[in-house]
């Protein structure tokens, strides 16, 4: 405590700047957390947060005891990991490729075009996906033309993840690469000049100048992504899945959503949310630690 006060004394300006931000977090982020007690009770509006019946870990037990628990965890993790594996590098690669383009008009056009899909609402995007991959959709026609089978691709469990991830890529690639473009623009041009004077080729420049220049951004984003590994949003899933694809498509959030439809059960969804948070925290802290050890970049 004493050293804390000393720190304030040493950096009064910084603390003064931080203060409003901290107040915001206390009011809008920490104060509502008392609501987490819901996960341990049968919450009713009348009883409120502190007067509802306390049930301990019952909702957690219900969730863990579900016959689908294993499948939900598997699907959630797989979709999330595959998404990370393909889409995370893809945004970086797009940024790097764009960075190599010298023609300004071409570059600007492509940037703008690539970020258009981000603005189409999910409902429409999912509608397009369903139309395009139906048994007579344009994408299916393309596949049939290449010698593939005519079928409703979205309805096949083995293709669900592919479609989910590719469409995510289509929608988020351009928008996601913007942050790297910004980071790339911050690299000191003198470094490139120095490297090329040393006789470094383009590949070497990429390895020794470009990548180190954006590595902090990459690692920060990667750590942040690790913290959301268990959070696959339900909206897109429920818009895309069907009874035939449950086995690969049903994730924790869509499962909770379906439950919520039958009975608006705050407590149950709080419990599942809390479970998600705990796992995500573990992942975030672990990846932060690893990163600190190997790259010297870390969040905290």
């Amino acid at each position, binding site marked *: 405590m004493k050293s804390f006060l000393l720190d304030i004394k040493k950096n009064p300006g910084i603390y003064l700047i931080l203060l409003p931000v901290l107040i915001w977090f206390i009011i809008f982020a920490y104060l509502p957390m008392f609501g987490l007690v819901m996960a341990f009770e*049968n919450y*009713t*509006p*009348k009883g409120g947060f502190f007067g509802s019946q306390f049930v301990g870990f019952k909702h957690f037990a*219900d969730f863990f005891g*579900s*016959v*689908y628990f294993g499948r939900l965890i598997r699907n959630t993790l797989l979709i999330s990991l595959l998404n990370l594996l393909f889409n995370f590098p893809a945004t970086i690669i797009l940024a790097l490729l764009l960075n190599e383009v010298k023609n300004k008009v071409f570059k600007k056009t492509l940037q703008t075009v690539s970020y258009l899909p981000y603005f189409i609402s999910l409902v429409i995007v999912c509608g397009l996906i*369903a139309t395009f991959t*139906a*048994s007579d959709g344009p994408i299916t026609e393309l596949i049939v033309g290449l010698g593939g089978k005519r079928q*409703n691709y*979205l*309805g096949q469990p083995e293709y669900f993840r592919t479609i989910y991830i590719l469409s995510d890529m289509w929608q988020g690639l351009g928008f996601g690469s913007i942050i790297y473009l910004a980071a790339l623009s911050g690299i000191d041009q003198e470094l490139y000049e120095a490297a090329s004077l040393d006789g470094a080729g383009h590949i070497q420049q990429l390895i020794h100048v470009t990548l180190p220049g954006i590595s902090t951004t990459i690692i920060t984003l990667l750590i942040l992504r690790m913290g959301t590994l268990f959070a696959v949003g339900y909206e897109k899933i429920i818009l895309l899945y*069907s*009874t*035939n694809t*449950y*086995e690969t498509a*049903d994730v924790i959030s869509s*499962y909770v959503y*379906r*439950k919520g439809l*039958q*009975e*608006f*059960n705050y407590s*149950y969804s709080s419990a599942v949310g809390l479970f998600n948070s705990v796992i995500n925290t573990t992942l975030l802290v672990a990846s932060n630690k690893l990163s600190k050890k190997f790259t010297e970049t870390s969040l905290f």
Partner: protein
Amino acid sequence: MKTRKIWALTLVLALLIGAMGGVTGSFSAKAEEITFPLAEPITLTAWRVAATSDPKLGITTYNDIEAVQAWEKATNVHIEWQIPPSGQEQENFNLMIASGDYPDLIFDVAQYYVGGLDKAISDGVIVPLNDYMDNRLSDYNALISRNETVYKDCKTDEGNFPAVYFINTPDQGPWYGMAIRQDWLDELGLAAPVTYDDWHTVLKAFKDKYGSKSPLWLNYHAGDVFSVFSAGYGVSVLGASGAGFINVDGTVKYSPIEDGYRDYITMLHEWYEEGLIDPDFYSNTTATYIPPDDLWATGNAGAWPDIYTLLDIRPYMGADENNKDMNVVPIAAPVRNEGDTLHLRQYNFTRGTNACAISTACKNPELAAAYLNLGSKQEYAWLAYYGVEGDTYNVVDGKPVYTDKILHNPDGLSASDAMTKFCFRSAGMYIWDRELQTAGPKALSAINDIWPSNADGNYMMPNITMTSDEANRYSVLMGDISTFVEENTTKFILGSRDLSEWDSYVQSVKSMGVEEAVSLQQAALDRFNGR
């Protein structure tokens, strides 16, 4: 900002006047008669789902509707509406309840209050209306006393009258059933199919002659929302009213594990193989009641479950050039053997799920009850459902008949849009048959003759309610069971799971606790029957 202040002022004034009225005894004393229009204007607040989200109607709040304005004039009661954004009604309702800040009147309460209206009463959100039934709500009381079923439907397990329901007046026939392309039958020289075997022949002919992708359309639960098509097998499908549960003479059964369900699925599996049902049926989860436009409008479907008012207008709803002359007619649901009587169909529910309750925050429940009673008086109900006499309707032979402002709207609105724009629905008498004025001949024969001809709704589950503990347990059980049944139904039909595994499927459903879920439904049904 400014208008809000004015409202606030009005409210304060109204309360003051109300309080003063109390002193002089104009309506707070129990015996006093409350007559409308009130001597002094008063304002009540009310939560209600939007009348429409269609921008072309220009209605953002109920007070924009002429009939509502007429009601206000006739009652001297001004309503300040709280209207949730469309599509977010449940969230908005939950927040309103959770915040403890209730308006005087809560419409649509039965639909959105999780856990049922007994719970809403014990949670202290709404007041039971029992004390007002004989006086303030006497007309409503008379309305629901017209027969025992209605009365039972409007009462809760614990004997409360929780809200003023919308009572179907008169009784309603089935507005949902099977429909078929008569023009195709004629061209092929086929008679209307009766048994499932006949249907098979007809659908096959549709497929061969017209190359239909989906001669028969069924929704993604392999059926329809009132189990009309599966009724011949005596089973209800998931996603239908009752969610697979049926009431066989007072005993609850879960259809998806019955032998009839197996036979039904077996038939559909064969039909799927022959291309007689939509090969992608399981993937369209948005079309539940009626087929999507790209199937029926393009000659890709020849038979489907439909809504009676749509039969006559199908050709004008976007059918493409080749199908401009389609003739869609209602047809009785298929049976296994000629002469069978079916027990599942769209049921003559005596009331809708809509209801209006008085909240515990209401300062003057006596007045609110008297106000809600008005909807059960014919003159006020007509004012709501038919609008202003001479403007939107005239009385012909003692019956209200819409004028051309509704039926052939000069601004080109359809009749149903015009009804939404100029009229509204009041709690009490729900005059659903006003829409028959816009219905064509096929619609009338469907609802009156053809769809009820070989079916009654005796197996349909009535409006039961569970206690909150029961409901919690039920949701935990059924969440998993429904997923499993949905998934396996699709697999059996597609053939990715073989029907020889039926017994092990039934075992799995049982091991997931379906018997407990049935017993919860049974308990609720027993209580209902004992009301």
